[in-house]
């Protein structure tokens, strides 16, 4: 509090000073639409020096009545305006040149700068480009549009999370996702909770040089998001409504030839897999023949239901519904010269293709600003409510895969009363009906998010501004898992009659020797389950910045800021896993046993001191630098005040050498270079971006042993991590050079960058051999080298009265190589292996992400077949079968080396067609789902040879003494369940595929409805109807018949592995009507 009082005292003092000065003429430069044009030069005609307008176009200049003001700037055509009244505010409209080179970008700390003055690379995406195809998550609207930016939508569930990286990865276990800054304040809430329609612009500061002023949080670049604050126009009310349909588009390739047999019966008679076993979950049975065969076991009344034994190509697809998302947006914006005001509300209600998965999101925003002479106050306030009700996707999908192809899956929706779909009647002896799971295993999540910003600016003199910003983020999440009870009829425990189909599938053979329904016997009555947790995250930011903006001499401009930035973050987490409860009253007081409890409280603080200065010479040469140092409560006293800095420069060569711009072909040439040293301490929090999640890493701790306390008896053990009192943020040193060309009066621009980021003192939770007594040690030890190039080509291909065709092509090349991890340590596991592990099957049977020295980061490692020195698979001379190697091998890098993005926008009269496509290539992904399908026999892969024995491709036979001969005639001894579930299910390498893909991300056609349609009324100002589609096409190599290579288990660094936890990729079609009043 003391701080605020002092601050206000200073503000008041400064105000008094200001009022005692001479009056000036003030005004504002805007474009034809009334949008502010920043940084224009304003001069009195015939006078000596001029002044520069600020970021909002405001200027103040000494002048007398009758003077002529000349407004000029590199991106505008010069305008002259005569002063008629010195006491009135002068609004000057200018015309902006058609070029992207002159745009103004919002940089770190919310400082607006001209793009040409920057020594580092940024990209600006306007709000309206984000919402072309009405994405729910703004990051989906950015995909493919910016070089160096990779956005992975990691699954296609309800409000699917995304992983965002700029210029690839640097940190091995720290967060590699950029810092998000909304309206100048660090933003901790989920970025997807922002309403895309509220976004004015997103400025992407790609490298760490651009974000260096954030010091120990700066190494991953920044997404600077500016929300709408209203304009100085008349009141505008906009309403839009969108309906989107989502359909499953890309399922794995299923076999539709073979039905139920799990191999337990007649298992080793390779020539007789001809018995159809009606209750089996695996598809290793006889080939479909169209005969009528029993469905599961006899029902409780003794009746046996029959189904045709034939393939059902759409069986899996029919399980999923058509998802529907309704989106309604309302916004109201108003303002005048001194005040602005923006109010909006958004309601999204969404039904996912996964049966029963529904969600709702409501976002409200209230932004505004008011200027009182030299004092401006603005604020933004937003509240987000999100609720999600989802099932366990992986469990449902697993059960879908465990449904042999002739089973009439989609007719078994009614699990309550359809006798074939109930727990007792469902055909599968081992697993539940997926519809039952979808209905009875529910994850309920309710999030509330609040973000508020208060921002005061005082301009006591024209060259100085003092700003104070107070930001608060508060989010809470309430989570509950509810699982219904599973109860079986007595008949499932006692009736052991089953009817198999004989070897030709034409008759039934009764059998009472196979026991009763397996799942009933094994699970019995299963009690309901209830687990719940609450989490909250509070962030307070308090920044003070003093900036000056002045002409030092005729030719030199100086923009400089100094300031402090204070952050306090608190995290609270409480969980009660009651596990079983007596009845489906989902409350922890119903628990049947001792619950598992969890609690965490973390608080951490940081205070940064920074300075930032840019020196401009004649508007064509710029030198910029920034410096920052932090006190971080998480680090030891010795590791405070670590310096971070950036030096960058920009030179507009076409201004220096006029010859360069007089040519007919090109008219603009800029070169820039940057060097910076920044930090990243998120590894303290295992990659979470939240400050408080990384607290308490410097002291050793003990934790309670599982099961304790036993009636009053405590038991503790050491944590398996070596605490490190000397840990400090990892350091990223970035070098960047760029060049920018403008051709044909800047109708065509080309921007190229090269960057190299070297991570040193990288924080690793280095795995230690258990023989050291620990399993991990938090160390500053790793080094990586991340480098790449970015090319952006933008142009107006056609520009005429009726036509405007804009095309943007961006290309990024990125490689992050692990130089070292820790001393001799050559590998570091980034993720736990995904998928299930069966008894006796080692975790290594699944692929997993690793950092490996001298390899790209990350790579997929897993078990491979035993191979000869030339890479051929060695098979047994008798069985024809390969064997599985005992150690993990590198199966490929998991991040794309090449990314191409293409955007196109064609405008013809009232029609606009926009499209975004992208390509990612040069990487691999591990499809765990393929392993599941090898287990169930549901993939076409398992039926490629019609289950006929074959010579293992590219195989050799070991003749001893290092001699290997090509195998031409030893066929595998079984091409059925002994091969696939028995062997292929236990090896990772066959399931690692090229992840390359072209995707058509967005296509939208919008029609600007002519006003004459609305007759003479003046109410409607604009009406636009848009038809759009997202994820319309995905082109993958033939080998990847499994899933979307963009998917991964979560948004962590462990990319390159997907599993049954991600439902099949979908397509989205939508229509939007937007009306402005």
């Amino acid at each position, binding site marked *: 509090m003391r701080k605020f009082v002092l601050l206000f005292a200073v503000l008041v003092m400064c105000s008094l000073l200001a009022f005692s000065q001479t009056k000036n003429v003030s005004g504002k430069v805007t474009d034809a639409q009334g949008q502010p044009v920043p940084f224009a030069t304003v001069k009195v005609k015939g006078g000596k020096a001029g002044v520069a307008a600020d970021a909002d176009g405001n200027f103040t200049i000494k002048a007398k009545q009758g003077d002529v003001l000349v407004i000029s700037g590199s991106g505008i055509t010069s305008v002259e305006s005569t002063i008629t009244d010195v006491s009135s505010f002068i609004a000057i409209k200018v015309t902006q040149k058609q070029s992207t080179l002159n745009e103004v970008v919002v940089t770190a700390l919310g400082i607006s700068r001209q793009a040409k003055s920057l020594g580092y690379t940024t990209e600006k995406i306007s709000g309206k480009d984000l919402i072309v195809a009405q994405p729910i998550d703004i990051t989906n609207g950015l995909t493919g549009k910016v070089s160096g930016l990779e956005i992975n939508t990691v699954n296609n569930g309800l409000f699917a999370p995304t992983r965002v990286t700029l210029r690839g990865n640097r940190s091995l276990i720290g967060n590699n996702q950029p810092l998000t800054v909304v309206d100048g304040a660090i933003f901790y809430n989920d970025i997807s909770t922002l309403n895309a329609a509220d976004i004015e612009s997103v400025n992407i500061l790609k490298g760490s040089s651009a974000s260096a002023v954030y010091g120990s949080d700066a190494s991953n670049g920044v997404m600077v998001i500016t929300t709408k604050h209203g304009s100085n126009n008349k009141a505008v009310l906009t309403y839009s409504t969108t309906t989107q349909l989502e359909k499953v588009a890309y399922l794995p390739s299923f076999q539709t030839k073979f039905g139920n047999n*799990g191999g337990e019966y007649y298992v080793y008679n390779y020539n007789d897999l001809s018995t159809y076993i009606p209750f089996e979950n695996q598809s290793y049975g006889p080939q479909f023949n169209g005969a009528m065969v029993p469905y599961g076991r006899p029902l409780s009344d003794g009746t046996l239901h029959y189904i045709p034994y034939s393939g059902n190509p759409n069986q899996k697809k029919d399980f999923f519904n058509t998802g529907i998302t309704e989106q309604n947006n309302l916004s109201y914006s108003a303002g005048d010269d001194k005040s602005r005001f923006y109010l909006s509300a958004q309601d999204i209600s969404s039904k996912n293709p996964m049966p029963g998965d529904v969600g709702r999101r409501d976002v409200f925003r209230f932004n505004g600003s008011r200027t009182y002479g030299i004092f401006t106050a603005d604020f933004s306030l937003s509240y987000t409510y999100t609720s999600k009700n989802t099932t366990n996707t992986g469990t449902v999908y697993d059960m879908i895969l465990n449904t042999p192809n002739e089973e009439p899956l989609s007719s078994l929706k009614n699990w309550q009363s359809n006798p074939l779909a109930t727990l007792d009647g469902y055909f599968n002896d081992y697993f539940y009906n997926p519809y039952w799971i979808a209905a009875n295993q529910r994850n309920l999540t309710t999030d509330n998010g609040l973000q508020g910003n208060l921002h005061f600016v005082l301009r006591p003199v024209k060259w100085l501004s003092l700003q104070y910003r107070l930001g608060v983020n508060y989010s809470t999440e309430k989570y509950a898992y509810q699982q219904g009870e599973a109860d079986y009829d007595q008949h499932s425990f006692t009736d052991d009659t089953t009817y198999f189909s004989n070897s030709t599938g034409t008759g039934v053979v009764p059998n009472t020797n*196979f026991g009763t329904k397996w799942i009933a016997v*094994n699970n019995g009555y299963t009690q309901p389950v209830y687990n719940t947790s609450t989490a909250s995250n509070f962030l307070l930011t308090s920044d003070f910045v003093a900036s000056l903006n002045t002409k030092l001499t005729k030719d030199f401009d100086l923009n400089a800021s100094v300031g402090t930035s204070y952050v306090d973050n608190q995290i609270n987490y409480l969980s009660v896993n009651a596990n079983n409860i007596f009845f489906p009253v989902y409350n922890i007081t119903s628990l049947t046993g001792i619950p598992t409890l969890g609690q*965490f409280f973390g608080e951490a603080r940081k205070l940064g001191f920074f300075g930032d200065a840019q020196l401009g010479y004649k508007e064509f040469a710029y030198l910029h630098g920034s410096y920052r140092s932090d*006190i971080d409560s998480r680090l030891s006293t010795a590791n405070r005040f670590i310096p971070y800095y950036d030096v960058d420069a920009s030179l507009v060569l076409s201004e220096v050498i006029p010859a360069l711009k007089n040519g007919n072909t090109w008219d603009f040439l800029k070169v820039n270079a940057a060097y910076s040293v920044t930090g990243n301490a998120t590894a303290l929090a295992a990659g979470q971006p939240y400050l408080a999640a990384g607290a308490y890493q410097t002291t050793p701790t003990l934790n309670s042993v599982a099961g304790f306390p036993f009636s009053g008896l405590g038991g503790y*053990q050491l*944590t398996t991590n070596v605490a490190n009192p000397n840990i400090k943020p990892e350091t990223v040193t970035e070098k960047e050079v760029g060049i920018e060309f403008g051709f044909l009066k800047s109708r065509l621009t080309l921007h190229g960058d090269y960057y190299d980021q070297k991570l040193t003192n990288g924080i690793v939770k280095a795995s230690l051999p258990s023989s050291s007594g620990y399993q991990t040690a938090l160390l500053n030890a790793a080094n990586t080298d991340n480098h790449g190039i970015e090319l952006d080509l933008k142009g107006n291909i056609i520009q005429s009265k009726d036509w405007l065709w804009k095309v943007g092509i961006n290309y990024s090349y990125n490689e992050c190589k692990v130089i070292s991890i820790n001393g001799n340590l050559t590998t570091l596991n980034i993720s736990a292996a995904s998928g299930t592990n*069966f008894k006796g*099957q080692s975790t290594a049977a699944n692929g997993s992400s690793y950092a490996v020295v001298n390899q790209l980061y990350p790579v997929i490692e897993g078990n491979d077949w035993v191979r000869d020195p030339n890479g051929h698979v060695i098979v047994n001379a008798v069985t024809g079968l390969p064997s599985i190697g*005992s150690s993990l091998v590198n199966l490929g890098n998991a991040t794309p080396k090449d990314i191409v993005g293409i955007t196109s926008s064609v405008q013809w009269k009232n029609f606009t067609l926009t499209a975004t496509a992208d390509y990612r290539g040069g990487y691999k992904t591990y499809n765990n789902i393929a392993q599941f399908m090898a287990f169930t026999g549901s993939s076409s892969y398992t039926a490629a040879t019609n289950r006929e024995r074959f010579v293992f491709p590219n195989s050799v036979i070991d003749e001893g003494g290092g001699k290997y001969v090509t195998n031409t005639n030893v066929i595998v001894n079984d091409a059925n369940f002994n091969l696939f579930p028995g062997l292929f299910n236990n090896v990772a390498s066959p399931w690692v595929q090229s992840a390359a893909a072209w995707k058509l991300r967005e296509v939208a056609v919008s029609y600007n409805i002519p006003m004459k349609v609305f007759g003479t009324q003046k109410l409607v100002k604009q009406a636009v109807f848009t038809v759009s589609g997202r994820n319309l096409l995905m082109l993958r190599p033939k080998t990847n018949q499994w899933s979307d290579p963009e998917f991964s288990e979560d948004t962590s660094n462990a990319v390159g592995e997907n599993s049954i936890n991600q439902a099949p990729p979908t397509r989205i079609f939508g229509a939007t009507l937007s009306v402005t009043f």
Partner: protein
Amino acid sequence: MFKRIKSYLYLATLILVLGSVGCKKNTFNINDVNPNVPSDVSPKFILSGALVNTASYVRNGNSDYIELYMGYWSVSGDYIPVTQTLTYQTTTDYYSGNWDNGYLILKNFRQMEVLAAPDPNATNYIAIAKIMEAFIWQRLVDQYNDIPYTNALNGGTINFPVYDKAATVYASLINQLDTAITIINNALPTAELPGSYDVMFGNAPNGEMATWIQFANTLKLKIALNLTKSASGTSLIQTALQGLTASTGQTGSFLGASEDAAINPGYSNSSYYQQSPFYNDMGFSTSGAVQNNESYYRACSYIVNFMYNTADTIRLYQMFAPNAQTPSVVLGRPFGSNVSVNQDNQHISAMGPGLLQLPTSSAVILPATESLFMQAEAVFDGYLQGDAGALYQTAVEESFRALQDPNYQADADSFITQSTNPNVNFTNSNNQLQTIILQEWVAVSGVDPLASWNNWRRLGIPTDLPVSQFSGNVATHVPYRLLYPTSEYHYNSTNVAVEGTINNLTSKIFWMP
């Protein structure tokens, strides 16, 4: 201009002051103490925790593979065969919990020594730590041969410990156990007894620390006996067993009748984590659902047939459950069987009530029966004085007791006296060592299979221990050891490389002939 710069400087100073004044002196020291978990506890909390972890380490799944090797268990016919298991193609991850968890528990006992060191009344904790460490070190050597020992457990200082020769470790363990016994004997009269936190011997009728000495001596015997076939073993065995006496009762140096080394902190069925570890692995969930391993591991036909052949049905029906057929009998499945017909879980027996007792049962980490069989063997070999036959008899009785036979003495006595089978009747046997070892093999089934694996690797008994019948299996005997875990190859690569190429079927433990 100069004036202007001066004003900037003034402003900059003002800002720095403003930024700092709001912060009190301790604003940035809030992370020095973790409010969520303790950073220091008294040694008793480590003792209870580490003993419970040891119980899980020994009895919750890590030894399942040895049950398969030793002909006790087979893989269920209800499941897809996992080729690697059935062909002994172990990977470096195969049952690596034996390594990883072993070292983590060792580190906790080591930490207990550190915490106890400053307190002259806490010497009993130091002694107990040394004994428990020896127990775990031996399990590591017996499964992995050479291991990091001298430099181990020093993470933070020594992150990559070098390997010690297994023989050196063994010799050192005997010294360590002697040291522990000396510490107990020299304890101050005021020395603290861990009592209820000693969830193994806290309530021992023979006295808490006296029983720890018996346990220490039994471990010395266990280590010594493994050396009977090693070149330089004899002198070490003699040193280890010097001054120790065998006894069938509770008066000798070792764990005697009814003196199981068994851990029980108060196991209950109230939560998954409070269940007795073997029950948790092989039994049922708190709500009674079958755990995976209950249906996956089933009786092996080798031990079932052996016990039928020796008329050992009382123990057999305690060890394995009768099947779901009529009539209901105990039936085993050959390991690696190629047949599923009549070999599914409807036919093949699960664990019986003598092994799979209750969720509240104590976790035995070294049963009295094993101690008595070892004493019998040591007497038979001449390393100890005593009556091998009487020790053998008590050992068999103790096995019946452990399997929950209420008339264990009478049933055991009639079993061994009425049988003429030399594998049962010690007096009639012309190979008494084999009789001891075979009955020990039966007795430790489902409890301490590592003991019988050690015996087989050392003495080749049972002589006809079968290998997997699986079609792809080429091994002619069961494996000799585990491969070092992936964690060593990945994270301690330089040091593990010194051990050369390890083959689980041919690389031997140092004490193997």
